[in-house]
């Protein structure tokens, strides 16, 4: 520890009276203040400046830490889990729709004499399970709070879900009475409700959650507030150092204990903050780059895969009009990938080895699965409706489909795991920093005021 040498107090000699015969040029700044009003005024001004800068550092630093820490915590424990719930909500609805439509279509097909049509019981149970899950995800999302857009989207979703279930029930009744066209048309209406109502609403809910994740992400990694806090801290440091230099010259004392303590508190708190931000930033960068980004791409890929699946089965029953869903399906397939610019490509190139490994299966299987889907559309365009149905059913239970979905799901879990671990580390990194900055600022105020007040007292 440096020895503080305290020179005997020297009362400055009385200054000669100003030369009344000569006009001195006007002087500016602290030097002018010191000269014009004397050293006590200068010390008072320094106390005021240091207190203001200390409080500014404490307030701004603590606010920055609180904001970033809360952003990181929200990202780790709220945003991502809710966005996953929103994604699962979409998948549950998509799966429910495709499952029940496929089952009812299979049930409506003729069976050889003496055989029973295939039971739709398992599909109906899966439908109910999917919809129950969807309701649970909705409840979870609403429990997490939300904005007006989300609340409205959830309310509309719930209404449309009830309507959807009504149409499915009508279809089931008509099929049960062997009124196949009416069953099919009711199923078309149900699917339209799913495709034009439920799924877009689920997508809106998902995008709301993704936007919330983005906001948390920005909050956790926002550079300007950190830079401003550090600039204020450095300004306080410069002020403290300057004050000490000035005091040393004026009073011939090398150190002012109060200012030294204030400077030490400031240096420790700035260093702590910078180190924490560096660490958290690195963790968050990994969390986002290797976790959240590929997870988001894979979540979207899962949704698009279900959209492709839904389009293909809907195309089987959509026979009254003029438009095939093949173009829409092809656009979704291009979006999924693999390949440059596709979702699978983007996730695979994110630099997460686990994700890349898990995705290999989907990347290998997706092209063949998409070819199988296209085969169904080709048969449909040739009006070979029964062959189209068989082809689509076969594509939906094919190894290709299973491989794509299971591989994407594993990779998504891996990306989520990376994200959670890294975001958790980032959140933990902030630890007691907020308190440290506040305490340091208070120490700065008290110590510098005490140190300077002692000098001031010597002039009274």
């Amino acid at each position, binding site marked *: 520890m440096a020895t503080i040498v305290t020179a005997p107090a020297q009362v400055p000699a009385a200054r000669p009276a100003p030369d009344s015969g000569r006009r001195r040029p006007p002087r500016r700044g602290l030097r002018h203040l010191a000269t014009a009003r004397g050293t006590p005024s200068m010390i008072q001004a320094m106390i005021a400046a240091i207190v203001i800068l200390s409080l500014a550092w404490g307030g701004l630093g603590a606010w920055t830490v609180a904001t970033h820490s809360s952003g990181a915590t929200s990202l780790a424990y709220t945003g991502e889990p809710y966005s996953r719930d929103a994604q699962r909500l979409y998948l549950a609805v998509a799966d429910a729709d495709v499952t029940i439509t496929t089952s009812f279509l299979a049930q409506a097909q003729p069976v050889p004499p003496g055989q029973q049509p295939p039971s739709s019981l398992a599909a109906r149970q899966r439908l109910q399970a999917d919809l129950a899950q969807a309701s649970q995800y909705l409840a979870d999302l609403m429990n997490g709070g939300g904005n007006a857009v989300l609340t409205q989207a959830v309310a509309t979703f719930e209404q449309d879900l009830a309507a959807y279930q009504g149409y499915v029930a009508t279809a089931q009744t008509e099929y049960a009475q062997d009124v*196949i066209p*009416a069953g*099919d048309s009711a199923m078309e209406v149900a699917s339209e409700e799913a495709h034009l109502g439920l799924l877009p609403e689920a997508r809106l809910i998902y995008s709301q959650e993704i936007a919330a994740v983005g906001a948390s992400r920005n909050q956790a990694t926002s550079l300007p507030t950190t830079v401003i806090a550090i600039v204020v801290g450095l300004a306080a440091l410069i002020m403290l150092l300057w004050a000490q230099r000035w005091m040393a010259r004026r009073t011939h004392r090398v150190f002012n204990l109060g200012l030294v303590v204030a400077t030490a508190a400031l240096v420790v708190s700035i260093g702590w903050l910078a180190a924490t931000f560096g660490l958290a930033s690195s963790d968050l960068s990994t969390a986002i780059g290797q976790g959240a980004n590929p997870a988001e791409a894979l979540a979207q890929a899962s949704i698009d895969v279900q959209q492709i699946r839904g389009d293909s089965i809907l195309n089987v029953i959509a026979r009254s*009009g*003029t438009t095939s869903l093949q173009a829409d399906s092809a656009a979704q397939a291009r979006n999924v990938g693999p390949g440059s610019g596709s979702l699978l490509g983007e996730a695979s190139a994110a630099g997460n080895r686990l994700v890349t490994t898990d995705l290999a299966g989907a990347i290998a299987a997706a092209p063949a699965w998409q070819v199988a889907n296209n085969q169904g559309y080709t048969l449909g365009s040739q009006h070979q409706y029964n062959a189209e149905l068989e082809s689509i059913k076969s594509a939906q239970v094919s190894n290709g489909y299973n491989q794509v979905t299971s591989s994407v799901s594993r990779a998504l879990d891996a990306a989520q795991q990376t994200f959670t671990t890294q975001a958790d580390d980032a959140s933990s990194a902030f630890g007691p920093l907020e308190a440290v900055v506040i305490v340091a600022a208070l120490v700065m105020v008290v110590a510098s005021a005490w140190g300077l007040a002692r000098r001031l007292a010597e002039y009274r």
Partner: protein
Amino acid sequence: MGLTGIGLAAAFGTIASAASRAAAAPSAASPGGTINEAGSSLLLPLMQKWAADYHQQFPGATVDTAGGGSTAGISDAAAGSNDVGASDAYLSSGDVLVHPGLLNIPLAVSAQSVIFNLPSLRGTNIKLSGTILAEMYSGQVTMWNDPQIQAINAGVPLPAIRVVPLHRTEGSGDTFIFTSYLSTQDPDWNTAAGYGTLVNWPSPPAARPVTGSNTMITGCEQVVGCVGYNGVSYLPQEQAGGLGEAALQNGGGRYLIPSPATIQAELDKFIAITPPNETIAMIDGAGGYGYPIINYEYAIVKTVQPDAATAARIRDFLQWVISSPTATSQVSSVGFQPLPADVQQLSQAQIEEIR
């Protein structure tokens, strides 16, 4: 949200709501301008009558009608090349998903006749089932005196004439409805051909393709032994040409011809389950009391029109069609039925969506 925000939102909501009501309400001025309509050839005879009556009632308004088939009606309306498309078939999910905002609005209830040309049995309603028709179209029943036909037409002197099945080659709502009936009644047909506006027709040697409802009539008139399908609105023309109308078997085993009573009996089973977007197939409903091939005749319209004046013209005309006594009285003149009150309300709600 602060009080100011709430106040602004309320004011905005009020203005938006008022604007919405204003947009949906019938225009206060007398309808005018021209509406282009094309599509279903089944609906065409009625649409022509409506157009004439509408013009008579509102001399400033003109409705240009054209056939072309349901498929053309849907695609033209979707493309915006016609104000109103007409279709015997509802929009497919593909149409609805690719063209969101396209509405199918029932204007009337129609039925489809199965016609035949057997001069010796003029005036006789030969009984036919979906299975027999499916076998006629797939070439398994080739003669009119086939034992299967004789079995259900006891006492009718069926002639030994070759069956000549006629089918539409273009995308057709009539084909959609007819093949839906065949698919419902005959599992083999459902497996082999299925139903749609276009299907892969089996090609027995006697089969003949035709295009359009009128060609179906003239084609059948020219070939003794023909069997075909057409909307009931063409029945007077068909009967004048010497063609017969078959009594079709419904799910309850009854053989019926389309009449106001049998159409209504079938319709009753579907009113309650007609969804708000009015997409429904009404083929061979459960219970088996009605004529088994009925359908709504749809106007296909875009929700969002190029301008408010066009939207108002279309709304005015469609509201007149479903609700004015003049228009509804014309419906029965072509063998159709007016919309039941519940369905009329659904149509009204859809018409109000046109902006």
